[in-house]
């Protein structure tokens, strides 16, 4: 598999954009009219949607709402986020 499209790489993109939104969210809560912050949020929101689409198409849902019509409810599938490769 292309290394740039590995689970780790695609998930890292989702995590990076998600964290950018979390950070901008908190700043905007106390600066709700800051134009630079609003633009920053919008830009990273678009990046998150793209990254989420790329991840979920290959590796399944990140939230139940990511269901894609497949014949099985992949939401239950391993791995869960607290598990790593060392899991027995």
């Amino acid at each position, binding site marked *: 598999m292309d290394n740039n499209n590995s689970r780790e790489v695609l998930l890292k993109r989702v995590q990076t954009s998600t964290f950018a939104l979390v950070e901008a969210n908190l700043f905007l809560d106390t600066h709700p009219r800051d134009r630079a912050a609003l633009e920053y949020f919008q830009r990273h929101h678009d990046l998150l949607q793209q990254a989420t689409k790329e991840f979920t198409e290959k590796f399944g849902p990140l939230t139940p709402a990511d269901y894609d019509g497949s014949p099985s409810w992949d939401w*239950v599938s*391993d791995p*869960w*986020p607290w598990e790593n490769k060392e899991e027995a």
Partner: protein
Amino acid sequence: MWSYKKMLEHPVNIKNPNPALAKVIITQLGGPDGEMGAATRYLSQRYAAPYAQVKATMTDIGTEEMGHAEMICAIVHQLTRNLTPAEIQKSGFASYYADHTTGIYPVDANGVPFSVSVLQSTGDVITDLNEDLAAEMKARTTYDNILRLVDDPDVREPIKFLREREIVHYQRFGEALRLSLDQLDSKNFFAFNPSFDTKQKCPPAPQPRR
């Protein structure tokens, strides 16, 4: 990780304040069988769950319980709006009011603060799921007790919704327990902890004869 949705799972619109009732209903936030304990219980237990469906069930029910805690808070908040000092005295709400005004603080019906000593996370999926089944029934019983004390349909309606969710959760946890038991050696159900004694594998299930 989690994100917040700015809505209640089920609407809460209470017209008439009733601080005496708030003092009873708040036990479903901070009491022994309340929603805060439920969320904490399932979201703590899930890390030791060895089967994917159980991980999902504990995660998703634990998440829903957080939404239920929010509904209880909304009910208590709306029942304690626009109170006069006279109403607070008369209703028996003064003991709560003295410490918390009309802020939300997780306590039981007697004012005892929330404690995790009301719950367990044992690292044994069979033990944990049996605790979860009991927890859902205890919460349902508490909602039944509350419903016997409430006439106001604005309060009854969301409480009835929450009561029904306990029954659905009981059903799902029952299925999770059955799925877990199916993984065990049928001759030796409780001889080992499937979350911990990972080296002991079950023999393959017998195949149906054709």
